[in-house]
């Protein structure tokens, strides 16, 4: 969790907004530091987190998490974190006979139309457990990242449907027996292909942008690589519940990633150039 980013977003783990979809997007740079930020943020906020990690292994996130002050291993052991390690379970799908559908079942099927097994996995993971007291504040779904699903053969509309169902469940579901409004949050990462004309990716990115409440866009600098400024971050708030209170606002900051934190500054105000 990067404290400076919390300040920019005007949020803390104690009083984060619920029922929101946050879209992380990166163009010409690596936006995974945002994923690590939100993972540690929601673990510190005592939320039940379902992390669909399709890009890196568990140990990668765990090592970065330790630098940010959370222990993923312990969170997984006490049931706070449900981790789908895409890289490992993809192998299971292909080489082991599964009786019930595996979340990554679409890898096996030639014409997998939809991501329903993955959605079922998420729903099971975030279902409130009927124990006496509520241990976790609210559920959170984190996906890293969605563009890889397009590369694995799913269509953009199938991925949008998956996110639609996740939103309907995580952000808005009413459980049948107990009237329990699971106002959870979702954070998804999509890569922006930029100049490479990837129509499916553009449909996915634009479709998600329209559904998101907050868009964080990490872009590389237009002038190229720089040692002191690693990129710029555009923050766009959309869909405020009260229109005209803060009409879609957009801010841009530049950032530098350090070992355990990320420092943000206004454009052109990097300490290295002042």
């Amino acid at each position: 969790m990067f404290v400076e980013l919390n300040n920019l977003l005007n949020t803390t783990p104690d009083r984060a907004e619920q029922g929101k979809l946050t879209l992380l997007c990166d163009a010409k740079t690596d936006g995974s530091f945002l994923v690590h930020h939100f993972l540690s943020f929601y673990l510190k906020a005592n939320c039940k987190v379902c992390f669909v990690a399709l890009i890196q292994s568990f140990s990668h996130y765990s090592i970065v998490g330790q630098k940010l002050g959370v222990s993923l291993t312990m969170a997984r052991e006490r049931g706070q974190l449900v981790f789908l390690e895409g890289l490992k379970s993809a192998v299971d799908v292909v080489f082991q006979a599964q009786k019930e559908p595996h979340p990554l079942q679409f890898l096996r099927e030639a014409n997998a139309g939809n991501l329903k097994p993955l959605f079922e996995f998420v729903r099971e993971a975030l279902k409130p457990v009927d124990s006496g007291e509520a241990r976790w504040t609210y559920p959170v779904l984190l996906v890293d990242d969605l563009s890889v699903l397009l590369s694995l053969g799913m269509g953009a509309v199938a991925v949008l449907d998956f996110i639609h169902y996740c939103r309907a469940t995580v952000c808005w579901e009413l459980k049948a027996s107990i009237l329990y409004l699971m106002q959870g949050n979702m954070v998804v990462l999509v890569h922006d292909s930029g100049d490479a004309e990837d129509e499916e990716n553009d449909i996915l990115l634009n479709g998600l942008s329209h559904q998101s409440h907050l868009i964080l866009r990490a872009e590389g600098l237009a002038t190229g690589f720089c040692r002191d400024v690693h990129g710029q971050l555009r923050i766009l708030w959309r869909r405020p519940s009260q229109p005209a209170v803060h009409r879609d606002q957009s801010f841009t900051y530049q950032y530098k990633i350090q070992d355990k934190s990320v420092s943000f500054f206004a454009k052109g105000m990097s300490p290295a150039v002042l």
Partner: protein
Amino acid sequence: MLDSLLALGGLVLLRDSVEWEGRSLLKALVKKSALCGEQVHILGCEVSEEEFREGFDSDINNRLVYHDFFRDPLNWSKTEEAFPGGPLGALRAMCKRTDPVPVTIALDSLSWLLLRLPCTTLCQVLHAVSHQDSCPGDSSSVGKVSVLGLLHEELHGPGPVGALSSLAQTEVTLGGTMGQASAHILCRRPRQRPTDQTQWFSILPDFSLDLQEGPSVESQPYSDPHIPPVSKNAKVDPTTHLTFNLHLSKKEREARDSLILPFQFSSEKQQALLRPRPGQATSHIFYEPDAYDDLDQEDPDDDLDI
């Protein structure tokens, strides 16, 4: 004009983008319709019913007939709660009404439907729904139908958008500048020229429309005092105030087209060079040498062997 959008009936396209979202305008128009006593149906596919109804007071909420296709549009929960036939079935059912009451159908969103249904089917159903009141025979009994479709421009190619645009009676494209939203309204009345107009507006917290004048010229940043302020609706023509002429008249264009390039060696040029025209040697040079001139009659190139 923005507040009389629904008076015409037919299909009204609300084209929005990521930066300028259109759902608040859709809700404002829905509220206006409901307050006018029309029957209002909402086909909710993109946001949940709670989120759509948020901001409306209970009076409005009671008048809205909400068809929820957000919770389980593809029937993944297999509970058969969803309307059979999905959103398309619900739209088709609305084609068969016989009420004299005017009705407004809000599609939230048309983009959602267009991504999942074939464009031709969707266009046919939209045409059938929005033109119910103009079909011969029963025209007196069926009230005016307005269909409000929210379309996210970036999601579709020019083909489907063009098809929907040709079906629409009115197209509202949302944009804006400096935090102020604007709507460019293109209106196609039958047997009249299409009219277009840009209206600046804002939506108040209770979803009523507030029409505005637009950002004042003085508040534009970086305005150069040497350039006269441009009126809001005029487009700046960069070819005015130039010191050179960028346009060609017809005669000039013909002359340019018939010009032979100077270094193009055509047969005429060859003949002209071989046979000098008579009267060519009509120019003489008169030279008065002064004291410092060294006139040497010898040809310096004499020793060259050409």
